[in-house]
Structure formats: C-alpha cells, structure tokens
C-alpha cells in the first residue's frame, strides 16, 4: 500500500466530495443567519449542561426547581434541593412544564378576534389595542387572574389601581373553606402548614394531600418520612375517612368509608369523645358535646365501634394530625367541615406540633368563587367594559351554570394573556402570547420568609413570538402613562427585591452580591414575623355541621368530582406526558372514566368499559365505567381536567369535562365553589369501549411480587417462618447442572459463573433499593424518566393496544379493600423497572447481542444493534422491555427540543427499557476520572430517584458494602421479585411494605 491511495486519503477525498455534494445540494432560497460558536458564550460549553435555579409555576405550592439546559435549551426540570418546599423532588406536573414550554400549540403571535376566529397581528398593534381598550374602559377594567407571583401581583395591582378597576383572583382548586375555617377557629386568615413528617397519626377527611392538595411534593416527603417504617420499627399510622379512596387514600392503613359530607359531624364527635377523656376544646367545648359518637356513626354510615377505635388511636397518639376534606369534598357546609377538623386538631394537641401557622402556606390558592360570581354578574350587567384574563381558564373549569362564557361575550373588550389558546382565550377579543414561566421573570413566596426567584432559563422559544407577562404589563403601563420605576420586568423585579433586601437589613451584604447569590441558589430566606401562641377562638359566625344538602333525586348516587392528580384542574391536559401518564388510581390514561363500586355496577348490569350517561339536574356527560372497590356503593366519582374543546391537539376531545355536571354554587361561608353538591343518575348507553389502561390484573395471586410484613412481626424480627429456597447456580457438569450456592445476594454474579465482560472482582455492580413502605405510587418518577430518557408517547390508540413505552410501570395491586366496613385497606404499589438482573433472561436470547451485560453489571441495550425480534421482551419475566412499534419519537416541532442530547432518540423497530440512567453514570465516571478520584457513593442519581418526593429510591454500588445502597439493602424487609423462582438475581432490591394488619403473603 505504499503506492496509490491510502485509506486516510481515500476517506479525505470521500469526505470533501461528499461535503461538496451536500453543499451544492443545499437550497439557497432560505438563507438564515446561522452563527457558530466562534466566540463561545461564557457559560455554554457544548455538550456540558448548565443548570439554572428557578421556580415551578404549575401549581401554587411554589416548588423551587433547577432546570438543566444544554446549548441554550431547557431539557429537564428537577427539584431544587435547597428549597424548603420541593426539597429536591418534583411531581409529574412539575416535570411536564417543559411540554408547556415547547408545546407546539403555543401561540405564535398576538391574535385579534375576527368574526368567529382570530387573526394574527403584530405586537405593536396588539399593545396599542390593549392600551386603548383599557384606557377607554378605565374603572370598568377588571383583571381576572389565577394565582400570581408576589411581584407580578404588585405590578398588576398598581396598574389596576391606576385604572380604577379591580382585580379578581380565581383558581379552580381553591382552599377558601380551609382559610375561612382557620380564621374562624384561630383568628388567622391563612392556610396553615401541615407537618406530616412529625405526625405519628394522620387522619385525612378526604384531603388528597399526596396528589393536588396544597403542596403535594412537600406532603409526599413528609408522609413518607413519617409512615415509612423507622429502624426501631416505629411508623406513623394513616387513617383515611372519605367516600372515595384517592391515591392518598390508597396509601392509608385504615379506610373509613364515611358518607360524603359527614366529615364535620364525625370530627366534632371525635373531638367530643376526646374532651370526655380530658381534651380541651376551649370555646368549642359545648359544641363538641352536642355530637356523640353514635349519632356521628349514624350520619357517617359506619359502626360506632369503629369510631371508638379511632378515638383510642387519637388518644394514644403523641402527635396526631387531622386534615380536612380537600377540594373534592367541598360541599355546602365545607367551612364547617374544615373548622371541625381544625377543632379536632386543637383538641388532640396538633396545633403547634404538627399544624403550624409560622410557616403558613402563603402561596396556596384560597380565592373564593364568590368574588368571581360577583364579577360575572357585573359582566352580565355591563358594569365591566374591559376584562383581562390571565393564568386561569374559567370558561373550562367553571360549571356551565356560572354563565361565564355568556358574560365574557358581553364584555366590550376582553383580553387573554395565555401561552396557548384555551377555552377562555378563544372568547377574547385580543389574545396575547405570554412567556412560559421558564422563559420569563417572576418570583414566589410559598411561605413566610421564603422567597424564590423564577428565573428565565433560556431565551424565549423562537417559534413563538411571546413576551413575559410582566413586560407586557409594563409596556401597557407606559402606553397608559402610568409611572413605574423600571423599563423591563427584570428591573422591576430587582427593584422589589432590593426593597425587600433593604427592609430585611441587607443580609449577605450589598444587593448585587445578594442578587447573584439568589439567582444561583434560587431562593432567599428572610426572617418572618413570629407567630405567637395559636388558640381556639369563639366562632364569630354561625355554621351548620350537618350533612350538606344535595341536589338531585334521592335515589341518585352521590357525585364526587375530584381534581385529577395528572391534569390538575385541566391545565396539564395538552401535554402528552401527563395525558399518557397512567392515573395512579385507575391506571387509565388519555380518557375519562367514572368510578363505580362493582356491586352498584352489577346491580345496574354495568360492566367495566360500558359507557354510561351521567345526569344531574345541571348537566350530563357520557363516560366509560371503571369499576372500583374504593368508592362507596352510594357514590360515583369522576375526575376533572379532561374534555377540553379548545386547548390543543393533545387535549381536545379527550375525555369529558366533569364540571359540566355541577351547579355554579358557592359555599355560603367561604364563597368556594362546591364540588360535592349533587346526586347523579346513571344510565347505560348500551355502548362499550376498551379502557386505555396499563392494568392487566390487580391480583398478585400470591406470587412473591409485593409481599408485605406486619409491623408487629417486623419488630419481633419475624419475617416469615420460611426457609429461603437454596439458591442454585449452573456450575456443575460444564454449566448444565445446578449446584447449591452459598453466595450472598450482594455477591452476584456467583463465583464461577460467566457474565460476559463482567468481572465481579474488579467492577461495580450498580443496583437500586426501593422502599415500598415509602413509595406512594405518585408516579412522578415515570414523568421524570420520560424527560430524562426521551421516552416517547404513543397516544391513546396505541395505549389501547398495550403499547405504552414507559420505562417505569407503577403496578398497583389490591390486597384488602372494603367499601362496606371501616377497616384495613391494603393497596400495594410497585414501581417496576428493568431489574438489571445478574442472570438476565433477556441477554442470551438476543441473536445480535443488542441486549448484553456491561462490565459494571448493567443490562445494556444497544438500540443501533437491535433488529427487533422482541425475543428479549418475551423472555423478560418482569415485562419491563418496551418496543417502538412505530417511529413514536417524531414529534411536532418544537416539542422535540425537550429531548436530552445525552440519550439516543429511539427509532422505529427497536426495543428499549430502563438503563439505570447510564448516561448519568458515565457522566459521573468521566468527571471522577478527570478529577483523578473514585466515584463517590451517592454521586450517581438516576432521574427517578432524583424526582421521588417520597425518597423511596436509593441507587449505588452493590459491591461496596459501605455504600448507602448496601446498607439499606441489608434490611430484613429486602426481597427481589420472584428471584427464588427464576433465579434472575435482580439488581433492584425492594423493601417490603409494612402494614398494621396481619398479612398472609410474607413469603418471598
């Protein structure tokens, strides 16, 4: 080869020719200005992620987040570990913020009403129109906003004040009754903090605190910390009282299926019984004496003995905590019910120990529907001549009886500030595309003294000509001639923070340094006003604690319309991650369903999947039935948030809007919109549909999948009288004969066995431990995994065929569930992921080595090598391998911007599965190697562990006996799913759930 062309030369020529051909082939019609990183921006290294601290804008809880950006694009949202609310975790909705940011249905430009539709206009025109419209309206201007950050609120109020108009806050999920009850009971017009972590007995009268109630991430963490069994075997008990088991209820130890609306009576009767035992009800002593247990038992439709048990539990508990009914339980006497729960808290000594006012939830939504109802009637009456709607979607989330749509049509000039069209914006005369919270400035104040900055983490997504809400308002102020102290909202925000900084006595030195620090960390803690002793006060208004009045005929079933843990009040509906996330309770995705007790359904001759017509005096909807043993026989439940008409391609036509069944009735005391207000008639339509569910069977059939242990047995060290079956290894006769093995589980693979390149003496074995006593099944991990690993969505049709691509399957098995009698409830969650078996059945069957064992004990999957025989999936006993039946990764621009560049976007026809976030492992290994050190324990954090609000997941090296993983796994509760039967030697160690009631299936 000395003469002629060398291989390198050949490649050079080939490369140059190819590139030339490519250049010639390029069209020159669309020359856009492309600038390479000739001089790289200071904080961007291609391929290295930059993290920005910001604040989550999905719900009023106000979690602090870190956003990972790469090459200027936000690609992942994670909890900010320094933030007291999120504590480093994030819920599914928080993760899905990315899909709102990159949503292909976002508004591309300002729009003006033109006939029935809207036409695009320029920002100049739009701002001119806005200013003149509001100038003309003057004091007839009304701002209708959702929960708004503090500084933006200041700006809005300033503007509204100048105009002489008014501002009304409305959130569909509002805790107005709790706030009012708190004012009545303790004289504090705010929402207290519920410290689940310090409680040893938690009583929830229906509050879904793990899903949507107030601050789900924080509650999840506190709940898992208290109810997760401790090293000494102690464990908080959780009793759920309510007509329907929400996900929160599914995590209860005991379920009291009380009649809906009876919470107030039951709480007062319990308080009364505690007063009899020496409790102090202060000014409520005489009130609680009026309610005795037998009457309460009668009202709640439970045996009186069960309530006595509850009194004993409360009496014995050192730090009980009682939570009110929550949004789904807001009925005509909701404030009274909340008040009764607060009184019970006070009587049982929770106030000050588990119920705190010094960290009240200042960010929580507690607006009253009453204010909006007044606004609506003013709109109808013509008193409102200009309406600006922002951050709320009343045309969707209010019952149609509210008349909001008609009233809005009646307003002369209506403006919507929105990131994308929704049912309200579509009615507006002018629609302004506002920036997403990840691309605009803002702040939040979730609790006294805690202030977080919502920092834009990237330039506005170029596909959409949007502007930050604050900047739109500042520009409006300028056009109206209103004096403000800033040109941009960024400056405005800084000025407010500067004031706050000075007021607080300039902590951290000069403002610039302080501000930089705040931006870096995402939050600042200022000293908050001290809260003195909080005591019960005499009620200043009369309340009825009786069963609330219900609309509809007496023979109807009680209707519960509850907030969806995935879609919230409906604002998450246009995000495929949330739509496709199997509901933690029903495991159904994409469409609506009605929960009916199996006995009730059988009486009516309805089967699962039958489409029924739900009819109340206020409206009707049609939805398929999901029979569920977790609702009372006299009750049916349906989630809100579905059934959009004008909210984008992923939301429209999916499911039904359950709010259409409700009247627009406000609770007399707090003004909250009541949810539990009517009975419903159910009629089969004769049609049937397959449910888009991932659930096969909810029965474990006594297989060793999710064994549990009773807490008494655990304390006694009795984890079952079984002898573990001898572990065997194919070592005899040249690898054909099983011989007993004495190796410890941690030492897999066993000596003498062959695992490809894996050398147990040299290498790590990456492994995971999941504490099922902590896991609440909230499913945040699933969305976190989708975000991190570019897991595609398949859509409803494909889900119906059983083709979902999630790498985590949150299995939900029903062991004990009885809606008739109060008693133990035992529903077990199991996050099933690739078990990274030491002896993996998937590996030998792959004909092309696409499934193989890495030298550090992972189950590798090489997408490029996969030909798609699906043999590995057939042979996977855990069924964690998912297949790309089509090219699911082709998503509309710019939704593909969310993809993590460190992870392959999988093509059609290849198998995929959990990789233990191998890209994170390699990043850490590379970093350690450049720093010339070993990988530290806990340095590798997979996306699921990072996101888990319950802190149930630990990841690490099973080979290192000192690693936290090894320590956690040495617990007696540890088991591996079906390992005894199929000898797969999984790397995922599950720690059994711990129950208070006896369990039968402790064998593993």
């Amino acid at each position, binding site marked *: 080869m000395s003469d002629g062309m060398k291989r390198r030369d050949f490649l050079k020529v080939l490369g140059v020719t190819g590139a030339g051909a490519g250049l010639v082939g390029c069209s020159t019609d669309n020359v856009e200005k492309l600038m390479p990183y000739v001089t790289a921006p200071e904080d961007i290294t291609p391929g290295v992620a930059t993290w920005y601290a910001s604040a989550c804008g999905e719900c009023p809880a106000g979690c602090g987040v870190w956003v990972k950006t790469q090459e200027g694009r936000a690609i992942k949202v994670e909890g900010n570990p320094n933030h007291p609310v999120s504590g480093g975790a994030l819920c599914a909705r928080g993760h899905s913020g990315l899909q709102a940011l990159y949503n292909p249905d976002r508004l591309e430009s300002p729009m003006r009403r033109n006939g029935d539709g809207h036409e695009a206009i320029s920002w100049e025109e739009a701002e001119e129109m806005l200013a003149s419209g509001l100038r003309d309206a003057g004091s007839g201007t009304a701002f209708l906003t959702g929960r708004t950050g503090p500084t933006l609120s200041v700006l809005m109020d300033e503007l509204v004040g100048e105009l002489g108009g008014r501002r009304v806050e409305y959130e569909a999920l509002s805790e107005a009754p709790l706030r009012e009850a708190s004012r009545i009971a303790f004289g504090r017009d705010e929402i207290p903090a519920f410290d689940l972590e310090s409680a040893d007995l938690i009583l929830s009268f229906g509050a879904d605190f793990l899903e949507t109630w107030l601050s789900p991430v924080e509650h999840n963490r506190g709940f898992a910390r208290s109810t997760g069994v401790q090293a000494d075997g102690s464990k908080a008990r959780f009793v759920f009282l309510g007509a329907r088991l929400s996900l929160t209820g599914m995590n209860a130890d005991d379920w009291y299926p009380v009649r809906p609306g009876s919470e107030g009576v039951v709480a007062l009767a319990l308080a009364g019984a505690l007063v009899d035992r020496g409790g102090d009800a202060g000014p409520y002593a005489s009130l609680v004496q009026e309610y005795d247990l037998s009457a309460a038992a009668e009202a709640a439709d439970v045996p009186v003995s069960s309530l006595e048990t509850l009194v004993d539990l409360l009496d014995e508990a050192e730090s009980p905590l009682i939570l009110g009914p929550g949004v789904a339980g807001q009925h005509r006497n909701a404030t009274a019910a909340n008040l009764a729960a607060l009184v019970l808290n006070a009587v049982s000594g929770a106030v000050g120990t588990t119920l705190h006012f010094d960290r009240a939830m200042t960010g929580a939504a507690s607006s009253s529907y009453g204010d909006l109802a007044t606004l609506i009637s003013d709109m109808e009456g013509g008193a409102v001549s200009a309406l600006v709607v922002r951050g709320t979607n009343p045309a969707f989330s209010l019952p149609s009886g509210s008349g909001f749509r008609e009233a809005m049509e009646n307003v002369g000039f209506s403006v919507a500030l929105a990131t994308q069209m929704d049912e309200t914006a579509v009615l507006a005369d002018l629609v302004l595309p506002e920036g997403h919270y990840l691309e605009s400035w803002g702040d939040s104040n979730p609790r006294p003294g805690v202030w977080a900055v919502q920092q834009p983490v990237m330039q506005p997504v170029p596909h959409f000509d949007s502007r930050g809400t604050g900047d739109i308002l500042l520009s409006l102020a300028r056009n109206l001639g209103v004096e403000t102290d800033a040109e941009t909202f960024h400056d405005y925000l800084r000025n407010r923070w500067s004031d706050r900084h000075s007021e607080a006595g300039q902590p951290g030195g000069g403002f610039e340094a302080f501000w930089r620090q705040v931006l870096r960390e995402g939050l600042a803690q200022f000293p908050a006003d001290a809260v003195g002793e909080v005591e019960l006060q005499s009620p200043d208004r009369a309340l009825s604690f009786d069963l609330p009045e219900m609309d509809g005929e007496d023979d109807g079933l009680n209707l519960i319309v509850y907030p969806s843990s995935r879609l919230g009040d409906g604002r998450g509906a246009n995000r495929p991650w949330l739509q496709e996330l199997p509901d933690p309770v029903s495991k159904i995705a994409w469409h609506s369903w009605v929960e009916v007790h199996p006995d009730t359904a059988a009486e009516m001759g309805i089967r699962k999947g039958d489409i029924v017509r739900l009819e109340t005096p206020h409206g009707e909807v049609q939805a398929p039935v999901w029979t569920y043993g977790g609702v009372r026989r006299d009750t049916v439940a349906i989630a809100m948030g579905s059934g959009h008409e004008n909210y984008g391609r992923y939301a429209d036509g999916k499911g039904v809007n359950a709010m259409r069944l409700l009247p627009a009735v406000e609770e007399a005391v707090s003004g909250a919109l009541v949810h539990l207000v009517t009975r419903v008639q159910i009629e089969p339509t004769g049609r049937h549909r397959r449910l888009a569910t991932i659930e096969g069977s909810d029965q474990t059939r006594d*297989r060793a999948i999710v064994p549990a242990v009773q807490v008494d047995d655990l304390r006694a060290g009795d984890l079952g009288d079984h002898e573990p079956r001898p572990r065997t290894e194919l070592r005899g006769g040249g690898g054909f004969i099983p011989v007993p093995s004495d190796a410890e589980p941690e030492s897999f693979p066993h000596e003498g066995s062959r695992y490809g390149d894996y050398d147990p003496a040299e290498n790590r074995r990456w492994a995971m431990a999941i504490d099922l006593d902590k896991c609440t099944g909230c499913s945040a991990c699933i969305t976190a995994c989708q975000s991190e690993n570019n897991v595609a969505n398949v859509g409803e049709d494909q889900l119906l065929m*059983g083709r979902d691509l999630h790498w985590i*399957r949150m299995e939900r098995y029903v062991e004990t569930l009885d809606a008739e009698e109060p008693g133990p409830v035992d529903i077990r969650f199991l996050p099933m992921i690739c078990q990274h078996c030491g002896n993996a059945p998937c590996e*030998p069957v792959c004909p*092309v080595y696409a499934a193989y064992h890495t030298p550090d004990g992972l189950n590798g999957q090489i997408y490029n090598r996969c030909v798609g025989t699906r*043999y590995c999936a*057939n042979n996977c006993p855990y069924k964690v391998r998912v297949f790309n039946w*089509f090219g699911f990764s082709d998503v509309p621009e710019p939704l593909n911007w969310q993809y993590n560049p460190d992870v392959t976007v999988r093509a059609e026809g290849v198998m995929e599965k959990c990789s233990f976030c191998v890209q994170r492992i390699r990043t850490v290994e590379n970093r350690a190697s450049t720093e010339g050190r070993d990988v530290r324990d806990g340095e590798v954090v997979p996306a699921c562990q990072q996101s888990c609000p319950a802190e149930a997941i630990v990841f690490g090296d099973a080979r290192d006996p000192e690693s936290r993983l090894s320590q956690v796994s040495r617990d007696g509760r540890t088991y591996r799913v079906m390992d005894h*039967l199929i000898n797969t030697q999984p790397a995922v160690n599950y720690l059994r759930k711990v129950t208070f009631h006896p369990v039968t299936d402790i064998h593993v």
Partner: protein
Amino acid sequence: MATVSEKDRATQTHPDVRNYGEVNTDILQMLSRPGKWWWVLFGLSVAGIGVLAVSWGLQLIQGIGLSGLNSPVGWGAYITTFVFWVGIAHSGTLISAILFLFRAKWRQSIYRAAEAMTVFAVMTAGLFPLIHLGRAWHAYWLFPYPNQRLLWPNFRSPLVWDVFAVSTYFTVSSLFFLLGLIPDIAAARDQSKKGSLRNRFYTLLSFGWRGTDRQWHHFGKAYLLLAALATPLVLSVHSVVSWDFAMAIVPGWHATIFAPYFVAGAIFSGVAMVITILVPLRKIFGLEKYLTVRHFDAMAKLCLVTGLIVFYAYLTEFFMAWFSGEDPERHVFWNRVFGDYWWATWIMLTCNGLVPIMLWFKRVRHSIAALFTITLFINIGMWFERYVIIVTSLSREYIPFAWAVYRPSVIEMGIVFGTFGWFFFWFLLFIRLLPPVAIAEIKEVLPPPMRPKSKKTKEVAS
C-alpha cells in the same frame, strides 16, 4: 407387461397401473394440460401473493406496529404461522427420506409431492422471521457474515440456531428434491419439444441424465446418502424450532417435552397437509391409479399415531403444570382452557384431539372425502396449537399487572393468508413444470416387464 392375476394384484401397490408406458403417459400429461381448476387456483394464489406484498409493504413502510402485537405479546400470528409452515415442511422429508430408508413401499406415489411441499413450506416459513422483525432491513445481522466490526451473532440465542436449522433444512431438502427428480426430468425432457423453453429447462435440471447403469448406480448411492443426511434433520429442525420456546423461561414454553412434542406435531400436520393437497390433485389429474386408497390409508395411520403423541403431549403439559405447584405455570394452563383464549384452545383440542379419533376406523381411512375433511381440521388445529402456545403463554406471564390481550390485526391476517398464496403459487407451478409423481420409483414397485409369453407389444422403459 404381463397381465396379473387378481390374487397378485391384491399384493401390488398400484394394481390398476398396467405397464411402464402408462406411467410415463399419465404423469407427464399433467405437465401439459393445466385445466380450468388449475388456472382458478393459480389465480387465487397470485392474488394471495398480491395481498402479501401489499400488507408486508405497508408494514415495512409504516412499521411493525401495523400488526396487532403488543407488550407483553411480542410474538403472535407471524411466529405461529412460521412454526406452522416449518411443521408442514416436515412430512416431506419424513416420507421421502425416513420411509425410503425403511423401505416403505407406499411412499413412492406420494413422496414427490410431499418433498415439493417441504421445499415450498420452508420457503414460506423462511419469510416470517423477516416479516416479524422490527427492522427487517437488518435481518442479515443474524448471519455470521464477516464484517469489519468483528460482530458476530449470539450463538447462545435459539433464534440463531433457528437461522442455521432452517437454512440447513432448506438446503438439504432442496438438494434431495432436485436429486430425486433427475431421472423423471430426463423423461420429461425426452418428451418435450426440442429447443422449447421447457426442453431447455428440463435439459438443465436433468444434468445430462441418460439412464445408464453407471448413472443409476451413482444416483442410487447419492440418494441413499442424502436420505441418511436428511433423516436427522427431520428430528433436529423442529426440535430447534421448539427450543425458541423451550429455552425461554416463559411459563407454558419452558418445558423439556417440547422437542419431541413439536416433532410429532410437525409430522402430524405435515402428513395431514400432504393428504389435503393430494386429494384434489388426484381428483383433478385423475391419478386414482397412482394414489390409491391404500396410500391414503397408510398416511392416515401415520396421522393417527402422531396425533396421539401430540394429544398425549397436551395432557402431559397440563399435568406437569399442575404438578409444578407454581402458580405462574398453573395459571397459564388454566388460562388456556378457560381464559381469554379459551376458543383457540378448544379449537386446538377438538381438531387435534377429538377429530383424529375417527381415523381409528378403517372405513374413515378409506373414504377420501372423510380424510380430506379430517385433515383440514387437523391443519386448522395445528395452526391454533402454535397460536395457543405462543399467545396464551405470553399474554399471562409472571407479573399479573402486565398481562394483556393480543388481537391480530387485518394486516397481520393479510400476511398470514397471503403466504398461503405464496406457497400454493410455487406448488401449482411445480405440478405444471415437474413430474409431481415419481415416475421412476413407481416403476420400481410395479411388476417388472417380463418377456411376453404370448405375442404382445413390447414396452419401452424409460
């Protein structure tokens, strides 16, 4: 040829065939006279290929998702039909090779058609591993071809064994088929018009056969050797195919009985298919003289024996599932009979267990119509056997929460039925181009032409 007494006739395999010349005329006339029914069937087959091409083309363009497969049922109608066709392929070699070695005299009339069926069935079966792949364009990665990246297939994977088993089987059975054809092709060559396309085709395939002693000697040796070589394949190929399942840990698949069970099933279905094909062939071409009731009787007996083995295997499977004491195993078998796919299981049990009981009766075995009906049932039953094994096992494995039901899609059924078109396309071409009944070998079992005792015309041997 001498006329034989009635007593002698009864001992002969083809009592109605009078002389060698008649054999040549009768068989070779099949090559020249297509007839209406042939065209109808051929048209249907071409239409079937059209359906196959369209369905598969769509699937290649849009994705394997056009099938009804899902998680956890990753294999369905495609692999079912693959195993079905591999099974069909077995009787040909059994009849031509094993029965040859055992000197079973009834094989001569049927073995050629059975062999052709084998070759075409393997050709059909071989499509399915391609069809069912997620990325069919990378199928060659399963072969150990030399490449720069030094990547080899995984020899531990039963799918790779499959590649070797099926390709070996195809090679050997095609060779065996073509070798046995040589003398008959030569006869056809001699009868065809010189210089015609047919003549050139026959000339090529007859490899210069002139019927010399020396050629017969070599031919006999080669045939015997290939028969000996093909015999183990009859047992091994379907054993390997069965290991696709038995080597996996799927409850309902992971059983040591699978290899013999599948081999018996393959012969059962293969012989049934031979009968199904020969009945119309005999009717259309008037081959009653060559395919006598006695031949069918013998095949029916083979069917009966293998059918009983298969049914015994079913019972053993159920017993072992119960005996294992493990719920996953037990539940799979309970689910087969009473679960989502009860209908498929009962079709299987009825067609393969109950219907063949009729074959105990000689009257049934001697009724061509009855045999035809019964073997149709068996064909259907054996397709469902594979469907039941594959689908019911996968749909309910270890983790109940992941259970799911699979329903074949229209595209999938199009491909499955389309491959029948593909198979019959080749088979119909075969009966028009190559002698479908072995001319030379039938003559072996006919009484040899003796010098006439009286003055009769001489016969010409081919």
